[in-house]
């Protein structure tokens, strides 16, 4: 059996006393829904060690990520795609430059190679025409698409999506989920996807292998 890519082991959420455990296996999409005050929005932060739980451990690619030294942690995070709530795009860069930023900073690709990859990513997310505008001038859907393109820049094995579908149409949300999954293989999705949020369109649920709901600090599996 292949090891889970992301494991929350007896993790305490802010303000909660109970502990939760869950795993994100390869080739699967895992969703945790919860209300705003449920603490569900801290799970992506714990997964990337942007915040540390008061108790419990988080394992990313079998490494206890919170124990990594700062420099190794930064390099380790590049192995994961992350679409934060509210997109997190840099306002003074165009959408194209936002998508290019992780490649320019974290790879030895030439500018020509980066432009080639950018063209593919922007076309895949259908924002090729909007590449030269800044986030403030883009629609919410364009921003979310650009943020997902940035998250997928290194073609990661695991993508973490926080509140990714809020404010999107069902069709756009479905497209983003499909791109995040990276197509299908015989074992399931090409990429594992870990999603958190308050809402996911019901029509997308068939494309999500495991669904949980966080209620009063307790993780309940949904059918």
């Amino acid at each position: 059996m292949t090891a889970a890519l992301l494991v929350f082991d007896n993790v305490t959420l802010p303000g909660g006393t109970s502990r939760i455990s869950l795993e994100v296996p390869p080739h699967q999409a895992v969703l945790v829904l919860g209300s705003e005050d449920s603490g569900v929005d801290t799970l992506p932060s714990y997964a990337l060690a942007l915040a540390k739980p008061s108790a419990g451990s988080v394992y990313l690619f079998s490494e206890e990520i919170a124990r990594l030294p700062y420099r190794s942690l930064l390099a380790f995070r590049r192995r994961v795609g992350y679409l934060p709530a509210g997109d997190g795009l840099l306002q003074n860069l165009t959408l194209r430059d936002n998508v290019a930023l992780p490649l320019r900073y974290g790879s030895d690709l030439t500018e020509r190679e980066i432009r080639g990859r950018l063209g593919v990513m922007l076309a895949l997310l259908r924002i090729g025409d909007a590449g030269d505008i800044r986030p403030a001038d883009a629609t919410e859907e364009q921003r979310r698409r650009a943020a997902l393109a940035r998250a997928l820049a290194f073609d990661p094995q695991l993508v973490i999506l926080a509140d990714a579908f809020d404010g999107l149409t069902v069709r756009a949300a479905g497209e983003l989920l499909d791109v995040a999954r990276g197509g299908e293989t015989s074992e399931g999705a090409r990429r594992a996807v870990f999603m958190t949020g308050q809402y996911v369109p019901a029509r997308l649920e068939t494309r999500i292998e495991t669904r949980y709901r966080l209620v009063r600090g307790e993780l309940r599996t949904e059918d």
Partner: protein
Amino acid sequence: MAAPVSALGNWVARAVALVGALARFLVEALWATRWLPRAGRRVATRVLIKQVWFTALQAVPLVITLAAILSFLVISQATRELGRIGATELLGRLMVVVIVRELGPLLTALTVAGRSGTAIAAELATNKVMGELTALRAMGIDPLHYHVLPRLGAAVLSVFGLIVVFDLVAIVSGLVAASSSGMTSARYFDIVLDSLTFRDVWLTALKGLIFGIVVGIIPCFHGLAIRGRPTEVPIAASQAVVASIITIFVCSGLFVVLLV
């Protein structure tokens, strides 16, 4: 009696803690250069060039105007007053010490602090409010590399470059003022260049470096120090510019006490 003493003590303790935190932030930023990835250097250089454009090149007209007016006023008055007591040769020392070495760096640094320091602090604070810093960290990019180092480097380059512009314009403007009072340009350049020593040059250069660090690091510190509420953005900008101005004056005073 105890209350004012206690308040003063609290103020001093806060000021010392702030200076300590600033010093630590500066050391961390400089230390971070050691492990900036090679590809990251290209990204940081792009940010630095953009920042030099905003901080230095766009400020050139303002610095030229300030230098021209200030130098013209000082030299035209000085030429007249020194001429009355037959001491026009002191004009050179006045130009070098007062304008080139003292007011040039001081006014340039204050201009950059007021113009770009507020912008840097407000921009970084807004970035924090918008979640951009968290997004950078999540991408494996240290905000010290992406935001702080390029702005610090740009501030040093900009202040240094603008001081050179200020001093050159001031010397030319002083020539116009002296000429209008009847002094020949040959005589003017003779007394100014005779008064200029190597010590004046390196002191001015050192001031450019120190003031550049002050103008670069303090706004970054205040911009990144907010907790993440939008209402903190203008406060951070205001604190940054006030702290920068005070530090520039304190450093200027220390230069006079320690090095002149």
